[in-house]
């Protein structure tokens, strides 16, 4: 007698201890055999209450707080915050400081994109590329360490300017490093566009049309790989970007290969910008005086982080502390695309599609709960 077996949807839970990424996120995939039929995401595992904490700290302390939102793009968080606060205080950093901010932003973009190439290559099973790109990334990490004193949280920004200067020795070191990296990046562009095995994992995988990218609110390289011509550095130049203008890097295919191409080509653009800034670095002061208290006002600032548009809203109330600091990071915009794009793909493609947006869960989330001997505390209560 023939047995009739009812076919029920099967759910695969991934995370919060993510097997691929080093950051926590929870995904529920409904699968039919190997094909994903539905997906949902749960965030918050690295939520640290930073927006609430910012209201309890003064303007200066908050530079260091927002810099710790993300360990990869720490500088751009502090830059967005400082630009917004300077606007509220009606002051402007000197041209040399603005140029140094942009210089460090581009160096940060280089290290972030090289890191991403490694992570994405690892998800694709191409560990040789992962090891090469991370080895080469050390070149830029050494440059950042020599320039700022730190590999991760550079603490370059002050309210009203920057605290580091660029001298001849820095310039020589940076230019030498860029020459090495530029040659390596040519090699990476060749690999991601010609390696037959790699292309099997990227070409036509996770394709997002321009219309889908716009509707789902994708930002940054993820959106530009789908033909969305949007880059805050070009649309709404901040800092010294009106002086040192990047070219828009855009691809139309919308698949994972296009996301690789956009980020690799953006590396060349960052090398060009860094050289240009070093060549024409304005002379002058590094900072201007900043008032301790700021009259009631509010301002929304947009900047282009390595992963896309980063949005800061800052409100002052006449005291030395902000009334409100709101942070909207690029990953939260791009996360919507992952949940939609994985549907219809094989489960094995999911890690690479997720890595394709260059997700940053620390940026997304902002509060950790520490459980200690059944006593539950926030990080705040331990200060």
């Amino acid at each position, binding site marked *: 007698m023939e047995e009739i077996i009812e076919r029920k949807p099967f759910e695969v839970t991934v995370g919060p201890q993510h097997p691929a990424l080093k950051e926590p996120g929870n995904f529920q995939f409904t699968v039919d055999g190997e094909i994903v039929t539905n997906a949902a995401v749960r965030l918050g595992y690295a939520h640290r209450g930073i927006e*609430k904490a910012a209201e309890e700290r003064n303007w200066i302390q908050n530079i260091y707080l927002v810099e710790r939102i993300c360990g990869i793009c720490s500088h751009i968080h502090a830059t967005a915050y400082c630009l917004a606060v300077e606007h509220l205080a009606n002051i402007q950093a000197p041209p040399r400081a603005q140029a140094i901010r942009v210089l460090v932003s581009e160096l940060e973009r280089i290290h972030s994109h090289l890191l991403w190439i490694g992570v994405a290559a690892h998800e694709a099973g191409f560990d040789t590329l992962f090891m090469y790109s991370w080895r080469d990334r050390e070149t830029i990490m050494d440059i950042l360490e020599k320039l700022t004193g730190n590999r991760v949280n550079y603490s370059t920004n002050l309210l009203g300017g920057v605290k580091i200067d660029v001298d001849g020795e820095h310039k020589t070191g940076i230019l030498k490093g860029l020459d090495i990296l530029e040659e390596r990046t040519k090699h990476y562009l060749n690999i991601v566009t010609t390696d037959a095995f790699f292309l099997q994992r990227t070409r036509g995988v996770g394709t997002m049309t321009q219309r889908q990218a716009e509707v789902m*609110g994708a930002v940054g390289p993820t959106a530009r790989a789908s033909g969305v011509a949007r880059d805050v550095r070009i649309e*709404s130049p901040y800092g010294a970007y009106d002086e040192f203008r990047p070219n828009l890097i855009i691809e139309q295919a919308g698949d994972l290969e296009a996301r690789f191409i956009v980020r690799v080509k953006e590396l060349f653009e960052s090398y060009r910008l860094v050289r240009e800034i070093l060549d024409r670095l304005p002379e002058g002061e590094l900072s201007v005086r900043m008032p301790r208290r700021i009259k009631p006002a509010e301002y*929304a600032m*947009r900047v282009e982080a390595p992963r896309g548009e980063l949005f800061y809203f800052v409100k002052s109330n006449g005291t030395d502390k902000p009334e409100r600091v709101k942070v909207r990071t690029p990953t*939260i*915009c791009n996360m919507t695309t992952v949940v939609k794009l994985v549907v219809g793909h094989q489960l094995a493609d999911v890690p690479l599609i997720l890595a394709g947006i260059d997700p940053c869960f620390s940026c997304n989330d902002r*509060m950790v709960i520490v459980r200690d001997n059944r006593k*539950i505390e926030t990080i*705040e209560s331990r200060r």
Partner: protein
Amino acid sequence: MDAENTFETVHLLLEDWAERFETPDPTRLEVYMKHVDDLVPAVVGLRVKKLGYLAAIVGLDPGADTEELEILYHFCTQDLMIILRFRVPKTDASVSSLCDIVPSAESFERELCEMYGITIVGLRNPGHLYLPDDWKEGVYPLRKGVDPRIAFQNN
């Protein structure tokens, strides 16, 4: 479209629903809306006229002693920003979801919902996005005067 034309179009589009317009900066237009019920038609109008994309939704609590919350919808196009400002009573904070018109609004709305206790009418998944599952109901951490630590008491 330049700033003057864009802002003029927004003026014409929203004048019936707006209490007043302010331009704090040549690239910013703030629209103080009369009623929160006008959110959806106003956003439909902005979408039809292609006046920017939704960059962020920001919640504001003007103070523990105030009776209203503010919700700011930031739409960006090129270097311009159009900000729609709404006020809702704290005791019955409610606003319509934009998800049917702007699907990317979902995560912003879920954050607004759990951090400020604003009910988003029509939100398909109003569950926690950032806060833990065992977070105490009725504790909205970004409201002024709220100590988030009370969310863990007696859990």
